[in-house]
Structure formats: C-alpha cells, structure tokens
C-alpha cells in the first residue's frame, strides 16, 4: 500500500463522481429534446442504465474489459464479482491508486456509453427491449472494445492506438451503434408530417452544461494522476468544447439564418467528444483546430443524415459517431510527445504512421460495433419486439411504458 498517492486517489475518485454525473446530465440533455409525452421515458433510459451497468460492471463487465488478456480480444473471468480487485494498486493500470478506485472510474465510462445510444431510438422503443439491449450491448460490444484499446494485451493497445479517454471505446462504438439502431427501428410515426419539436430547450442546455462539467473528470481524470497531464487534459477539453460550440453556432447561423441555442449546446458536446481521445496528447492550438473540425463535420454530418431520412432522433451518430471518428483521426494528426512522453508524435510532427494506426482503430471499432449491434437488435426483435405498438407511440412512452406523466400543468 506504500505506493498509494493520496492526491492521485482523491483526484481519481472525484473524477469518477464527475463522470457519474454525466449520465443523468445526458438524460436531461436528451429529455429536453423530445416531446413532453416522452420526457420521463427518455430520462429513465439514462437513469436506469446508471443502475444496470453499475451492477453488470462489478459482476462481470470489469473482468471482461480489464481482466487478464485472452488473445488480445477479451479479458478473462478471473476478476468476476471483483475477486482479487482490492485496495492495493494494480501496477498495469494505475500504480498509485487503489485498484478499486480505478475500477469504479472505469465503471462510469461503461455506464454512459450505452446511455449515449438511447438518443437514437428515443420516443419509440419498448422498455423491455431497451433493458435487454443495454445488457447485451455492454457485454458483447463495450467490454471487448474497451479491452482491445485499454486492456493489458489488447490488440489495438499493442498496435499503438492512442485513445486517452475513450474516443474509440465510448464515442465511436455508441455513435455507430446508434445509427444502426435508428435504421433497424425505423422512423418515428408522424415524422415529417407533423411538428416534432424539443419540448424544453432550457433542460437541454442545462444538460449540456452539466455534461461539460462532468467531462473534466472524464478527460483530466484519465491521466490517472493529479499532475501536469491532468491539467493539460482539462485545458484542452475546455478549449475544444468552446471552439466547437462557437463553430457549430456560426455554421448553423450561416446555413439557417439564426444563432441557434440548441446548436451551441450540441456543438459543445461535439467538441467534448472530439477532444476525448486526444486530450492527453495534444496542446491547446490543436484543441482549437479539433474543436473547429468537430463543430463543422458534426453539423454537416447531421444535415446529411437528415437528408437521407434516417431518424437518428437526437443526432447521436452525428455528434458521437462523426465526432468520435474525427477525434480519433485528429489524435493521429496532432499528437505530440511534448505533451505526453508516453504518447507518440502524430502526422504534423513527422509521424504519419500514427494516423494509419488511428484509422485501423476507427475501422475496427466501426465494423465490430455495427455488426454486433445489428445482430443484438435482430435477436431482441425476434423474442421481445423492439418498438412499442403504434397506439402507444401516439400516446407517448411516459404513459404507455411507465404509467407516469412528467408534468401536471
């Protein structure tokens, strides 16, 4: 126990708490964007996942993701129900904090990732189907990909992939899965024929602000120590979020004729997504360019998705899929060992090979997530049914699925 640092441990546990807050914040971000008849069901998606994955993670998720390696693909079952995961540090993952502290920090990442997907199937998915999907997806998509990238012996980690806080593991997997879910479930009833508007934009902006706040734990906490690297991650995270919000607002202003408040909120989230894999490897100038790219590419991506008539209800693929891919590739462009000596230089610092490695990680995570999500959804559709009946969709999911109403006035 003599290696435990009180400062590192305090920062990591505080960061875990910050990341925990992001999942209910996501519920509010999404909740404001849906119609009032679906707001409780939408918030419940995030809140329920917080509970569900908290238990899944300690029982088997952590072991699959971070347990002793099997062929670079998956962790073993050695740490089932946290057997052997105690107060002593694990030198492979976090040499100066209790292993339990590292485990619970990673738990919060496992929690928020499937919650991100829920925005794609909002306002039409059966609650039972959602529960089964989340459990299967966390086990067969998140846990293996987390092992590939972060687990000791994981094949993408061995290849040299840089993913500081989860651009590949969290955002590409969830964003691509969201697109597949939107395609498999189909469009909401009435879309394009009747107005489907956000019922409370203030709730969404509050949710985005809390996400931003929690993201400091997500990225700066991923340094796993309370030092200079955490400070760098904190600064570039804030910078990229701000720049992406400004860019999205500007692009949408030029495109649609007004500086959108919801656009600024979505832009900030896109910037946070894009800087996530890069936050421990790039400086502040790169963060500005990453934010610029996030605000532009994600906005354009959403316009294309809408033109293709894909009902990704709350733009999860546009923000997390495209933002995650841009962030992963941008890490291969802008990374520098001047920021993190344990990292690598990227394209602009004379190492084009890193961009190729990042592209392989993107391609692998996109392909695996898409195929597995499709299979999981088809299995659930066959046994449980994915969508609520049409009359229940019209009534709203708050009443039909939960027998409750969000507002009495």
């Amino acid at each position, binding site marked *: 126990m003599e290696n435990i640092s009180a400062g590192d441990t305090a920062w990591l546990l505080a960061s875990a708490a910050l990341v925990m807050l992001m999942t209910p914040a996501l519920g509010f971000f999404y909740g404001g964007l849906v119609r009032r008849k679906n707001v409780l069901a939408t918030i419940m998606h995030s809140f329920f996942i917080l509970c569900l994955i908290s238990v899944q993670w300690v029982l088997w998720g952590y072991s699959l993701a971070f347990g002793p390696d099997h062929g670079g693909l998956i962790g073993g079952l050695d740490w089932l129900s946290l057997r052997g995961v105690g107060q002593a540090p694990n030198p492979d993952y976090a040499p100066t904090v209790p292993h339990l502290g590292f485990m619970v920090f990673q738990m919060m990442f496992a929690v928020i990732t499937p919650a991100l997907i829920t925005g794609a199937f909002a306002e039409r998915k059966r609650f039972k189907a959602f529960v089964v999907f989340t459990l299967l997806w966390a086990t067969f998509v998140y846990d293996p990909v987390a092992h590939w990238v972060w687990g000791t012996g994981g094949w993408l980690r061995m290849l040299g992939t840089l993913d500081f806080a989860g651009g590949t593991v969290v955002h590409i997997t969830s964003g691509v899965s969201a697109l597949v879910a939107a395609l498999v479930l189909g469009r909401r009833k009435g879309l394009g024929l009747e107005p489907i508007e956000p019922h409370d934009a203030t709730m969404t902006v509050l949710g985005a602000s809390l996400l931003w706040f929690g993201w400091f734990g997500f990225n700066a906490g991923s340094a796993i120590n309370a030092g200079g690297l955490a400070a760098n991650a904190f600064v570039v995270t804030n910078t990229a979020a701000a720049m992406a919000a400004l860019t999205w607002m500007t692009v949408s202003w030029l495109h649609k004729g*007004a500086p959108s408040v919801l656009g600024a909120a979505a832009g900030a989230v896109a910037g946070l997504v894009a800087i996530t894999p890069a936050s421990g490897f790039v400086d502040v100038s790169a963060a500005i360019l990453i934010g610029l790219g996030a605000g532009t590419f994600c906005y354009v991506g959403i316009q294309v998705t809408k033109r293709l008539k894909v009902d990704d209800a709350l733009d999860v693929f546009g923000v997390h899929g495209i933002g995650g891919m841009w962030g992963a590739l941008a890490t291969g462009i802008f990374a520098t060992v001047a920021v993190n000596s344990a990292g690598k230089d990227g394209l602009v610092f004379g190492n084009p090979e890193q961009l190729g490695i990042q592209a392989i990680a993107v391609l692998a995570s996109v392909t695996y997530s898409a195929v597995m999500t499709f299979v999981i959804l088809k299995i659930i559709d066959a046994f449980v049914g994915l969508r609520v009946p049409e009359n229940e969709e019209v009534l709203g999911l708050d009443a039909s699925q939960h027998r409750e109403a969000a507002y009495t006035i």
Partner: protein
Amino acid sequence: MELAAFASFAVLVVAWLIAPTKGEVVHIESVKKTTEAAQAA
C-alpha cells in the same frame, strides 16, 4: 499550428459580423399558436 488556430478564430469573428438573421419563425409550433391567438384576438 498556432497561426491556424488564430486564423480559425478570426474567421468565426468575421462570420458573426456578416451573418444575417433571416428566415420565417412560424414553423415553430409554439410561436405559430401564439401568432394565431393574437390574430384571433
């Protein structure tokens, strides 16, 4: 890279100065209802 960062921010500032505010607002359902109620009154 510093130059590109400064330049990109400058482009945004210029865009805010020249971007017009335009377009109909009646596509927003709540605004449409308010407008209709005002006209009825």
